[in-house]
């Protein structure tokens, strides 16, 4: 059922909409001044309801979700998205609220926001959160704005630089740049962690702060974090925690206790709101005591009488959103936090870490493990081992991309590939705590099978995928042709 676009199913005169009969006699669109009226035609589809329902139902069957199978996409924390979260998020008492309703009519919504704030504070060991940022990158930007505001309010205008490790998520430097900072990169040691000796000379009175994720993007816990935080704080900077890798730390270590001052959390990773094909997410930002005033407006506060209000604070960095962010996502996260509770949150990271180490140990015989030792929620292979066709010096070696495409053929989503940039053939695997040993064992068996086929039947492996709805795509043609919309002619 692969193929057509909705435009190709359109027929003039079909309708799929239903509108109430207009009950009043009044001025309609024809009375608008000619100068402001649309004159070009609307090339929208014309289709009946069944045609639309079928089209998108069939389209969904060309997609892979967490409910389809194992989704070990490193750095993305693809855990099960419980259905109860969707159920409560669909409650009309939440979905039908206009963002500008009087507070008295949205007390339940505000209480939920407040409670999520409090839970995130407890989990992270920080003082207060805003839930307004729309996504992880938006949270980073907000967090950096807080750091910059902190310095500016102290009158310290010379702090224009942010330190970022070379293994960082790409959004870190990008967010810093958008926030008006210059980026200073700090190197990694051979074990993949921040090189403290490389860091020291970078520190000075022009440093606004340092961004880190811990465990880092290689899944390695930065054990020197107390030293690093001390060094940065001593030079007057603040520590920013990129919460993308928070999952394994749940109930084990808290960013606040590690010495971080500001952080964001990806609710769509750690707290299981659905990724939705790439959004909407939610990127709450938390701060340590003393920085609360800089959190963006609007804010939810609890009054002395137990009621809740929306407020704006003149000390704040400003607004990063008109309202309370992707509120519907907060509803899902709250349901998840309630479902897990203390014990569940406590187990989640431990089991995710167990799963990651289990895969790592099971597959290092076939795939190149550049950094040995305990990983946390994820780890990185540098492609196939040489004896399994992964020899980089061989021009025809089987690449990480090709391993990934073979996984698709076996009913698995692929890991993240070619990130982090530290290795040529990075294959970054993150199995979350909702995956069973049975699933991991199947994955391990398939990964070994692919490795053995790469050794024995290289041509087949290199031409994968063979069993997907479409074959391997031509990325270069996409760039060259630059076709971003359907051509109606």
């Amino acid at each position, binding site marked *: 059922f692969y193929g057509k676009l909705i435009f190709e199913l359109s027929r003039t005169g079909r309708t799929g909409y239903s509108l109430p009969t207009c009950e009043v006699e*009044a001025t*309609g669109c024809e009375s608008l001044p000619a100068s402001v009226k649309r004159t070009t035609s609307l090339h929208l589809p014309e289709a009946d309801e069944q045609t639309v329902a079928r089209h*998108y139902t069939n389209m969904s069957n060309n997609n892979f979700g967490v409910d389809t199978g194992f989704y070990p996409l490193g750095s993305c924390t693809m855990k099960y998205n419980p259905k109860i979260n*969707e159920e409560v998020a669909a409650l009309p008492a939440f979905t039908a609220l206009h*963002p500008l309703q009087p507070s008295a009519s949205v007390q339940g919504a505000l209480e939920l926001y407040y409670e999520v704030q409090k839970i995130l504070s407890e989990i992270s060991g920080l003082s207060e959160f805003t839930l307004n940022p729309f996504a992880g990158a938006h949270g*980073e930007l907000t967090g950096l704005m807080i750091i910059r505001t902190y310095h500016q309010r102290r009158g310290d205008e010379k702090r224009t630089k942010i330190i970022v490790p070379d293994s960082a998520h790409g959004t870190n430097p990008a967010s810093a740049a958008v926030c008006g900072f210059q980026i200073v990169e700090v190197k990694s040691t051979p074990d993949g962690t921040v090189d403290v000796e490389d860091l020291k000379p970078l520190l000075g009175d022009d440093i606004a702060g340092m961004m880190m994720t811990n465990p880092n993007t290689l899944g390695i816990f930065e054990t020197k974090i107390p030293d690093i935080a001390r060094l940065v704080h001593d030079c007057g900077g603040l520590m920013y925690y990129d919460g993308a890798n928070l999952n394994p730390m749940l109930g084990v270590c808290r960013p606040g206790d590690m010495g971080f001052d500001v952080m964001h959390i990806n609710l769509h990773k750690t707290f299981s709101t659905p990724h939705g094909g790439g*959004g909407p997410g939610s990127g709450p930002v938390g701060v340590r005591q003393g920085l609360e005033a800089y959190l963006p407006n609007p804010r939810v506060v609890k009054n002395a009488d137990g009621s809740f209000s929306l407020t704006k604070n003149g000390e704040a960095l400003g*607004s990063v959103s008109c309202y309370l962010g992707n509120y519907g996502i907060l509803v899902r996260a709250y349901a998840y936090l309630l479902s897990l509770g203390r014990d569940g949150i406590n187990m989640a990271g431990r089991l995710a870490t167990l799963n990651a180490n289990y895969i790592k140990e099971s597959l290092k015989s076939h795939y190149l493990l550049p950094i040995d030792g305990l990983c946390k929620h994820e780890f990185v292979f540098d492609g196939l081992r040489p004896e399994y066709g992964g020899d980089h010096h061989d021009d025809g070696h089987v690449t990480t991309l090709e391993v990934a495409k073979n996984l698709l053929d076996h009913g698995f*989503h692929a890991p993240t590939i070619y990130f982090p940039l530290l290795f040529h053939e990075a294959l970054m695997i993150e199995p979350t705590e909702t995956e069973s040993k049975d699933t991991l064992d199947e994955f391990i068996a398939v990964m070994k099978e692919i490795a053995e086929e790469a050794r024995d039947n290289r041509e087949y492996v290199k031409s994968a995928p063979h069993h997907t709805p479409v074959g391997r795509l031509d990325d270069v043609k996409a760039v060259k042709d630059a076709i971003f*919309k359907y051509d109606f002619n």
Partner: protein
Amino acid sequence: MHRYFPHTDEDIRQMLDLIGVKSLDDLFAEIPEELKLKGELNLPEGKSEAEIRSIFARLSAMNKPLTCFAGAGAYDHYTPSVIPYITSRSEFLTSYTPYQAEISQGTLMYIFEYQTMMSNLTGMDVSNASMYDGATATAEAMMMTCAASKKRNRVLASGTLNPAVLDVLKTYAHFHGINLEIVPAKDGQSDRKSISAKLAEGDVAGLIVAQPNYYGIVEDFTGLADECHTQKTLLVITGPASPLGVLKSPGEWGADIACGDAQSLGLPLNYGGPYIGYLCVKSALIRKMPGRIVGQTEDTEGKRTFVLTMQAREQHIRREKATSNICTAQGIMCLYVAIYLSLMGPKGLVEVNDISMKNAHYLCDALVGTGHFKLTYDAPFLNEFCLTYDGDVDALIKKCAEEGILAGVKVDNNKLLVAVTEQRTKAEMDLLVSLAK
């Protein structure tokens, strides 16, 4: 074990054995003891589904959805039942960014459809795969105008933009080093004279105007694009998406960038989010456009397929030279819009505007007819209008809310902004009028 965790005790034992450690806690052995959480998190115990439903029933009872005459960027249009049905399919909902195109054609195709629809609606050459919301899309547009001009960092925004959007623009401008000037509105419309004077100074990277503007007014931008382009200034038009079905599109006005919120295309109000920002540009600006974009290509068999493309523009390669840090789209909300527009079609989109406009004009006349209101600005409007009230707006909103009606949005103590959609019945409008008497 918790219902979300599949590990049996036996599984855990076997896995620990293979790893070569003794306990789950040993997996964290390298972490300095002083960093580890002492004791337990101070959180309640996990709840069963029945208990969660009870908690949400309690919270629901503390919310009161109101018959909505509020707009100001968020509109109560109907959501066809097909939309939540399709968007809840886990293949769409639980997937991530379509990195593996061979098993992500569902997401890629609906984004391509979305891009096509939004390009056409706005009259622009190309749409990206969506932004967080209208305000951040406008902020990105603002940054784009500076990035495109290379040397300029001055941007003008008309005071007719939604003040909440202006707040976000100010924040982004402040941190990004943009000199944002808000040109105060005149009679509820863009002050063309002031704008012209500022444009003539020749250092303006971009001008941002709104259509319909915050006061609901449909402005006439005749000549504005030429004025901008003469000065090498980029024209940005921002606004809600639904009216594009009947109003002259940004492309027709000659804008370089069209942006705004597409919530009005069938998305529920959702207490402010998730919504979806759209951002569409002229071809010349494609490489400056932030966000994801889906392009057409072929697979090994020559079949037409779709893929994330133009990633060279993206932050994860440009890193420290980034002019945007956007690395996702609003994903599933593109699907909302694509389904909505597929069902409405050209005829439905015009009709929804027409009914909304008729309702709005009926209600406006009726409210003015009470003698307590007058139309603040005498200018054409579609489905939203600003009234000057002879009483206290807060008191009126409070009184109506108690009767289950959200009378509108407070502009100031005696100005009320009222929006009406096709969902409002005559009885509801008449009730509002009677409460306002």
